[in-house]
């Protein structure tokens, strides 16, 4: 007969079920030894050479910002201020002018695509962990709209055990992350298939990182009318054309306000600037924008915190726009300086 089938090597007939049970016990013991040794090793100076630990979300950017804040807390003993928001404050809020004018050391914890619900969930974890005196939330219309990134945040980030644990809901992973550095280290290695430069970032290399990630130049000349691709291909277009504030995103803002109140942190809402041509995306143009601003004003008044609108208040020349709703490096410096000046006036007794 031709060799049609290849079966296994012959099994050892002497194995018993008791042997298998012993093997399982030995493996569990070995696992315990490996985990305890790992815990000891990552608590030793070795940790400085390992990638920053993870917290089990799909966002490595979040892990790295946490590591940078941890390093800052270890060095300074206190965190003055945290900036939260999406790509708009990530690119557009420079902590340096705030430090110069207000004497407040801010860390920009903005993350790409972060919606209001994401900011609310994250605020609980951050305020609990770092107890800053000031929380600046860079708001924008997209953070409350039905866009893909918001859906992803609601489905993939907000339900993660670490964030749920921070809200007081028991999760095994949250409990482990609160107690075991080795577990966080394991989660850091879950990015191993990504390019090394994107995840193998040691905490020591983050010591001078303030979370602000400016970009240079312009991808769009904002003085030109909206082009056909801008109107048809951009993911945000449909959600802005029929703009409405999603209740689940608004609940995120309420959540954020509750978190700030519970931790005694002063909350400031800052409208991140958009170029006037951005309003052309909106079905009802300026009216949609005005309604959005009014909702924020009402909310901030009711909850007794400061809201700083920026549209029409700050003069930003065309050259400082990376696109219609993102500032470039020069724009970030101008806007942040303007904001610092406003806060100096409107935020008496700022830290």
């Amino acid at each position, binding site marked *: 007969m031709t060799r049609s089938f290849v079966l*296994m090597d012959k*099994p050892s007939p002497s194995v*018993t*079920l008791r042997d298998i049970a012993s*093997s399982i016990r030995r493996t569990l013991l070995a696992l315990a030894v490996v985990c305890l040794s790992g815990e000891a090793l990552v608590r030793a100076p070795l940790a400085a050479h390992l990638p920053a630990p993870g917290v089990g979300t799909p966002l490595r950017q979040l892990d790295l910002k946490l590591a940078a804040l941890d390093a800052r807390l270890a060095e300074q003993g206190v965190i003055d201020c945290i900036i939260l928001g999406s790509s708009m404050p990530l690119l557009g809020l420079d902590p340096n002018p705030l430090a110069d004018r207000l004497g407040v050391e801010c860390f920009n914890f903005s993350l790409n695509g972060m919606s209001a619900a994401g900011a609310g969930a994250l605020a609980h974890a951050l305020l609990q962990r770092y107890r800053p005196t000031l929380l600046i939330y860079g708001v924008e219309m997209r953070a409350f709209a039905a866009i893909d990134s918001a859906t992803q945040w609601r489905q993939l980030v907000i339900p993660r055990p670490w964030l749920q644990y921070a809200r007081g809901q028991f999760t095994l992973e949250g409990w482990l992350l609160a107690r075991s550095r080795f577990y966080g280290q*394991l*989660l850091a290695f879950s990015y191993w298939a*990504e*390019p*090394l430069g994107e995840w193998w970032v040691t905490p020591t290399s983050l010591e001078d990182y303030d979370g602000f990630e400016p970009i240079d130049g312009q991808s769009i000349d904002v003085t030109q009318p909206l082009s056909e691709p801008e109107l048809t291909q951009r993911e945000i277009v449909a959600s802005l054309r029929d703009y409405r504030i999603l209740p689940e995103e608004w609940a995120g803002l309420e959540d954020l306000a509750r978190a700030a109140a519970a931790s005694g942190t002063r909350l400031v809402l800052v409208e991140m600037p958009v170029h006037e041509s951005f309003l052309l995306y909106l079905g009802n143009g300026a009216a949609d924008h005005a309604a959005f601003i009014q909702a924020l004003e009402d909310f901030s008044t009711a909850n007794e915190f400061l809201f700083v609108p920026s549209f029409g208040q700050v003069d930003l020349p065309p050259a400082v726009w990376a696109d219609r709703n993102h500032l470039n490096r020069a724009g970030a410096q101008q806007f942040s300086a303007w904001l610092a000046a406003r806060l100096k006036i409107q935020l008496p007794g700022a830290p």
Partner: protein
Amino acid sequence: MSILSWAFWGLTLTGALIYWALPAKWRRAWLLVLSLAFALAWGWFPALLLTGVGLLTWALGRRPAVWGPWLGALLNLGLLLTFKLQGYFLEPLAALTGLNPATLALLAPLGLSFYSVQAVSYLVDVRRGQMPALASPLDVLLYLAYFPKFLSGPLERARLFVPRLAVSGPPQAAQVQQAFGLAALGLLRKAVLADGLFAMIPDNAFWAHESGLVTWLVAYAFALYNDFAGYTDLMRAASLLFGIELSRNFEQPFFARNFAEFWNRWHISLSHWLRDYVYFPVRRALAKGLPSSVVLVHIAVPPLVTMLASGLWHGSAEGGLARMLLWGGLHGLYQAAERLPALWGRARPPQEKPLWLQTLGALTVFVLVSLAWVPFQVGISASLAYWLALLEPSRWWAALPQVWGVALVSLALDAAQTRRGELFFQLWPKWARAFAAAGLALVVFVSLRGLARADFIYAGF
């Protein structure tokens, strides 16, 4: 239901516990219930079609003296080709009938490519007198539907597989131990090595030829291998929990020193099916119909036809038949070219060659096999563009050292299996095994957490 899900393994373990608690005479019936339930998890249509094919195959196999088996084989192949090629005749048929093509389209049910060719092998073997027709429809149905091999093989022969179903007595500890070993291997290959590599390959790697062309080829070769080999190991482990052994599908294919050897090491059960039901019949037909002086035809045609049949099996109108035929044709040409030295006398088998020639042979096979994976991924024009782009060495590499690390781990695993046997680690001292298992558990955990699990590639065929 993903094979890496808790649901699959929970159902398998529960099914195995019930299986062993049952009297031996009820075990096959229970396996059939489990297998049909598994098919139902993919939808009622796959389960219904599978049952229909099984009953038809049983009924036609019962008439070996007359036309039954041939008709059955033709019907099975016809069914397979109908699903694969329907994309070509849907439009004309829709124009003819006035119906919407979407209404006419039949969704190719999962597992069809695998169980239909197994039905053909059963019927042909019965017709050839190599096995008696199975008396019970339950046996034929279970042979086709057995859930650890239903989705993606291995392709078993009824004459060898059905006797293995007669499991009596209590579970054997040695088989349980082997099941653990195979599951560990399968997890390492599938969840860590394959899914890791798939996560590294950009979606557009094979048609936007910027850079990293060689890196992506190497990554894809090792990903595909570990994906399918890991899947097979996991399914063999699941099957061993029922005391039933499934065939190996891979034996260190990247150590093959020529193409004939490669196809005895890669997707072995399909290769051997093609050899027995395509290659040998074609060779016999040529030997009968053509004078032996036309040596080139005798050498080139059987492998070409066989590998084109393999391309046809892998392809479909929707997924791209032409590119799969190109892939198969390339492998046919490789094998035909490899046999050319036979024109000038006896070719030396690879093991008789010096080590450096064996190594060169293995490298050549790897490079040519990897180049042939391009049309396996993308269309013909994109493949040509990729091959042309490979002429520029400046575009060969991507800055992803992990690809080479994973490839090295995969090769080291293969080397250890070659030297010490498939489950080489079971020969290690007790505590070494325990620490290796603990380390593997952590690595698998980390990988499963971080990697977007790639769909198992062969489930698409």
